[in-house]
């Protein structure tokens, strides 16, 4: 399959008012299609525009709505989400070693990090045995409900 060809079709579609292009040849069919007035064009129009207007509404947005919580591109990985709103800490105390590093083997129930909320330190445990392949959040940054914290490659 010629990915370049499909990409150029998508680009063509995006540059015009067309909503669909379909090509069928040599027993192969490619169809690209976009919805107008639907989900795609509406992902976050108000924010988009506001962001272009720093003079009018200086949007700093400490916490951007994170809508990409799903793990579609890496379906084999397990994702540990934040169960609460709070501040993410990788270590027990400042300066201490992080609970886990990328590459570490972890057990189900093992503490991965702390999310502090209202002065309470909430220990977040792994719900899988496996290998830590990614830490999704910077140390000491804010996390919202459902935000991915770690990606774990489950043990076979």
């Amino acid at each position, binding site marked *: 399959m010629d990915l370049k060809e499909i990409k150029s079709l998508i680009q063509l579609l995006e540059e015009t008012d067309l909503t669909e292009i379909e090509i069928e040849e040599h027993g192969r069919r490619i169809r690209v299609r976009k919805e107008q007035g639907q989900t795609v064009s509406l992902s*976050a129009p108000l924010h988009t525009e506001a962001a272009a207007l720093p003079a009018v509404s200086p949007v700093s947005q*400490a916490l951007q709505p994170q809508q990409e919580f799903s793990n579609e591109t890496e379906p084999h990985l397990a994702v540990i989400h934040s169960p609460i709103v709070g501040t993410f800490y990788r270590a027990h105390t400042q300066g201490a070693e992080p609970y886990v590093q990328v590459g570490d083997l972890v057990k189900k129930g093992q503490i991965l990090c702390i999310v502090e909320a209202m002065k309470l330190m909430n220990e977040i445990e792994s719900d899988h045995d496996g290998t830590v392949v990614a830490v999704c959040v910077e140390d000491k940054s804010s996390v*919202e*409900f459902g935000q991915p914290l770690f990606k774990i490659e489950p043990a076979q």
Partner: protein
Amino acid sequence: MFKKILIANRGEIAVRIIRACRELSIRTVAIYSEADAQALHVRMADESICVGPADANLSYRNIPNILSSAELTGAEAIHPGYGFLAEDGHFAEVCESVGVRFIGPSAEAIRLLGNKVKARETMKKAGIPIIPGSDGVVSGEAEAIEVANRIGYPVMIKAVSGGGGRGIRVVQKEEELSQLLKTARSEGRTVCGDESVYIEKYFVEPRHIEVQVLADEKGKAVFFPERDCSIQRRHQKLVEESPSPLVDEKLRRELGRAALEAVRATHYVNAGTVEFLFEKEFYFIEMNARIQVEHPVTEAVSGIDLVKEQIKIAAGQGLEFKQNQIKCQGHSMECRINAECPEKFTPSSGTISVFHLPGGPGVRVDTALVSPTKITPYYDPMVAKLIVHAENRELAIAKMKMALSEFFIEGIKTSLPLHRRIMEDQTFINGRYSTNYIESFLAASLSTPPDLPL
């Protein structure tokens, strides 16, 4: 003034509060559930934080996550809107304990008013008329007769543990009382094993009249021209108007005085609403410790932005106007547009892909609709409020009819057709409706020929 406010709500009221904040140059933090990631209030706010899953108990009522959100974003105050945590004394208390201003009355006032028995007692002590009845449970037939004679027939016998119409009997005259007392007792016993009953004045065609108040921390309080919210079904208001077609200037002042008395008796601060039942006389029902859905009709006739006032009061600013500066100009009316079957009131969910909102002079629509919007079954079915303002009631009805005629929502069933019919109904046009209106209106509708669809 606050620099940043967190809005602990969703839908049109969250949008309404964000607009007020913008005008006051206050930055806003929206909270949202996973079901609301694309919602208008999230897009409009300067910052937004997901606080939980679709279930409101785990998101919009999730006190720890909401307070954490305020802490993380540095929001100095929380506006609760209506519903959710708006009248939760515990929430108000926790807010204050962690140093976040709760935009509303004190936790004590919320708790007092949330306890219907205590609220009633407080108002009675303050000299505000309450619905006449027995002082608690009546012991026997002799006391029942005595109470009924004192308050006058018709009276209502209510089983203490009854509900949903069970254990309730209306007594028209003394001869009926003995028999109906027995029936109510036995029904109470059957349904919930408790034959205790109490007696209350029964109102045949009561009206629901309410008075908006604002009170600042310095003890200054004002009342606004009354709202008539008698058009209800199952205690859900459908149409509200201000002023009431029933209330004259004298009654308006009396209602206002009673409302201010309620404010004093409860040491109430911020915006609140004192609800009365009216039939010849007015009687206190309850006081709502929050901004109400129908606040725009009061804004229309008074020209005062109640949500901005709420914020200013919470920030410690005193009221800038006096009672005699509060006008009652023209007539305003609100229709609540719900996502529901207009006949049976069953909620309707789905995706609104196409809609058209009315506009023009004197027309206001408060909504969180944005295309496409998914109406989920998780929250309040109200999708929009249509508010009109005109020189008088007749012109307000004409304007409402006009606005309803161009209001269009595709993808779900709404109460729009019902509102269109109400605006054509002679009883409504005459202004001679009671809280029984919708029930009898629908009963009459069902007997009309089928070529007049709802």
